[in-house]
């Protein structure tokens, strides 16, 4: 990647010099950022975040390639769908990367005091985003390219696919950065960061919703159907870049005559976006990226717990240590960017998933009876997303933050987990389950209350059980999960097995009148027992395992180094 970065800088140096940039300076800054990103670890984990992103891109690309292989849409639709995913992934990856790449403050002090022009700094930052996002997009494009070249083994396909991916990728990066920098310019830094997180969550939910609804709205195997869908909004359709890519492929394969205006429009868009980006970025970028002013929060006011949950939490968690676990998790889950990005969309997904199930099932008219156990299933399905919340739930990415608990007289650190578990239930799993439950009640009427209740009670119990099972590695950072020998596959297997067993049991007992109420009571009793067991988790299993040396001070590493450990 360093070689790629240097090549890109060399290629762009004739453009950069007239703008006042110094290619050597750009190369140095870019190399430093690329190296840092390649070595960047998420919190205290050993796993390389960049490699994870590459793996994510490859997974998405492979998934899409398989879908396209099975659906076999026509050429234009194929390219439109592929490039739509490229655009979507580019936007997401750029939004995720921009705050820490563009606004990377680690070298700001050094850069501010070096004789570098703004242009050097700006171009280096933008190129860092382009290079790193570009590599991730390439990992997504590769599988779809392989499937496409098998279907259309022609040089025209190769050329169009490469050009389209490059053009749309660049367009995605530039436009996203323009929006990001515009937000930074218009809003105070902290509000801007909140705004970006909100946009990311909204986009994720929109994309997932679109993926869920698209098969119901458009016949993906019909060019005419896709054309009709895009034409519903003529302005959008004619300016939607993936559609241009579809048209290019159809021209290249001789299916359509070339429309030079459309071709030009498609190629001009990223150029215009690039110029716009340079303009918006060039004005005092260094100044805008400075750390926020100290004390920008409103002084003198303490955050209060939400009134309607606090009494319930206090009733469920009488011990102050438990309430510490609850409050800490609740506050951090509302404020920590990484947690919100990874979990908030899941709240919508689980609802969409449940709604999708109900809609799908409503097609089978004769089975759609009142009192059917099916009405409880959308609520049970919420549990499938529980691992994401449980594994993301943490007090801190840095296990060293646990020093506060180490130094406190906590007889049973399991109480912290109990508080976190209740927080997960009250703040996330239960509310989203209630939304699914509401959908079931609206469609099925009050007669299905028992089935819905059984689903809700199951979610409560299963969440606490998950915290207990995975909880030996909580609540400080997920790297401890690896130490505890828990793998993603194992966690997924557990979730699927438990969820499937619960659903099967619900159906099996469905014919017995009142069985759903019995299940609800059983799950609630199990939940109560599980909470008690969480509280009793032995200190040795948590604190001493995590912190065998009890935290870190400046002298720690020297003493360990002196001891050769």
């Amino acid at each position, binding site marked *: 990647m360093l070689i790629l970065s240097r090549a890109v800088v060399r290629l762009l140096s004739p453009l950069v010099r007239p703008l006042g940039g110094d290619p050597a300076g750009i190369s140095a800054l870019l190399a430093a950022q690329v190296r840092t990103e390649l070595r960047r670890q998420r919190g205290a984990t050993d796993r390389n975040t960049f490699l994870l992103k590459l793996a994510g891109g490859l997974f998405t690309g492979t998934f899409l390639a398989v879908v396209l292989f099975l659906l076999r849409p026509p050429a234009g639709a194929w390219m439109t769908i592929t490039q739509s995913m490229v655009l979507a992934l580019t936007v997401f990856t750029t939004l995720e990367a921009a705050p820490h790449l563009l606004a990377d403050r680690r070298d700001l002090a050094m850069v501010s005091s070096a004789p570098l022009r703004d242009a050097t700094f700006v171009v280096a930052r933008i190129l860092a985003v382009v290079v790193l996002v570009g590599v991730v997009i390439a990992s997504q494009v590769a599988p779809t390219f392989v499937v496409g070249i098998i279907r259309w083994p022609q040089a025209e396909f190769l050329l169009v696919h490469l050009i389209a991916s490059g053009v749309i990728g660049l367009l995605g990066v530039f436009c996203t950065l323009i929006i990001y920098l515009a937000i930074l310019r218009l809003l105070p830094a902290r509000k801007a960061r909140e705004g970006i997180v909100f946009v990311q969550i909204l986009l994720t939910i929109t994309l997932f919703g679109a993926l869920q609804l698209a098969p119901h709205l458009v016949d993906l195997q019909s060019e005419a159907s896709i054309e009709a869908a895009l034409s519903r909004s003529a302005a959008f359709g004619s300016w939607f870049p993936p559609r241009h890519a579809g048209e290019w492929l159809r021209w290249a394969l001789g299916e359509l005559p070339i429309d030079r205006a459309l071709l030009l429009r498609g190629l001009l868009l990223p150029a215009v976006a690039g110029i716009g980006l340079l303009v918006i970025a060039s004005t005092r970028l260094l100044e805008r990226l400075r750390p*926020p*002013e*100290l*004390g*920008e*929060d*409103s*002084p*003198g*006011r*303490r*955050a209060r717990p939400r009134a309607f949950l606090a009494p319930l939490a206090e009733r469920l968690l009488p011990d*102050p*240590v438990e*309430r*510490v676990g609850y*409050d*800490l998790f609740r*506050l*951090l889950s509302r*404020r*920590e960017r990484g947690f919100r990005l990874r979990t908030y969309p899941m709240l919508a997904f689980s609802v969409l998933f449940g709604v999708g199930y109900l809609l799908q099932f409503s097609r089978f008219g004769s089975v759609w009876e009142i009192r059917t156990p099916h009405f409880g299933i959308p609520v049970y399905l919420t549990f499938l997303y529980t691992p994401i919340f449980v594994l993301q739930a943490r*007090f*801190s990415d*840095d296990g*060293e*933050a646990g*020093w*506060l*608990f*180490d*130094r*406190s*007289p*906590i*007889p049973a650190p399991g109480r912290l987990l109990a508080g976190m578990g209740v927080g997960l239930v009250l703040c996330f799993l239960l509310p989203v389950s209630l939304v699914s439950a509401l959908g079931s009640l609206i469609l099925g009427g009050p007669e299905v209350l028992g089935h819905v209740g059984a689903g809700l009670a199951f979610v409560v119990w299963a969440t606490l059980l998950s915290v207990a099972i995975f909880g030996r590695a909580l609540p400080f950072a997920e790297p401890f999960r690896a130490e505890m020998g828990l793998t993603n596959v194992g966690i997924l297997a557990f979730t699927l097995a438990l969820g499937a067993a619960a659903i099967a049991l619900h159906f099996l007992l469905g014919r017995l009148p009142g069985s759903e109420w019995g299940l609800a009571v059983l799950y609630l009793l199990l939940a109560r027992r599980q909470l008690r067991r969480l509280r009793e988790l032995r200190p040795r299993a948590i604190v*001493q395992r995590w*912190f*065998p*040396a*009890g*935290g*870190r*001070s*400046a*002298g*720690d590493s*020297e*003493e*360990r*180094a*002196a*001891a*050769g*450990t």
Partner: protein
Amino acid sequence: MITPESPSPSIRVSALRHRYGSKEVLTGVDLTIPAGTVFGYIGPNGAGKSTTVKILTGLLPGWEGAVEVCGHDVRRSPLEVKARIGYVPENAILYEQLTVGELLELVGRLHRVPTDLAERRIREILGGFGLEERLGTRIQALSKGLRQKVLITSALLHDPELIFLDEPLSGLDVDSARLVKDLIRGLADSGRTVFYCSHDMDVVEKVCDRIAIVSEGRIIADGAPRELTEAAEQGDLEAVFSLLTRGKDAARDTRARVERILGSLAP
């Protein structure tokens, strides 16, 4: 040294040994610190200071010897020890997303300080530091000096008998450093014990009633600052420290290193 009239010591350590892997980092430490003392614990990097502090605060298992803190055996009653001590680490990782008020409330609850009392102490202590208007400020927005004050507040919230301070003046401006030094003196005068770790010899010499110098896992000097400087026939504690930890040639060695660095800057 305990006199017959003094109260029972805050810290009593006897033949303390500990190893990391095959290497011994503490090779037999003996300490007795009376209550109401500001005790300085200094040593070069890697000497065993941090390991000692972790053992005294009940965090590190696997050591040999006898350690009693605030009248409780650390091995048998670590929770009793933790309930009676406060700790201000150097370079503490905090919960950046919490506000000052939230963090301190959390600490108060962990130490089971009644809510009203915790709120009053938070107000008064932060007020003493001039931070009463920062209750709603997030930790991430605080400078190093302000974080240090918040840390000191958190260590005092439950009125500990013994306070461990690791470079407590780090990041503080002159006035704040003066305040903290006076606070340390006041805590000791009111019967509390302060265990002070620092590399700043000037401060240690002014603030501490007694100092122990640790090197290579054992205490090589122990006494009041003046006793140590007189016994070593040196002008200040820094010179005593250098002499004892690096030997007679320390000053010449330092001069040689400085010349080497300056020499590299010559054209």
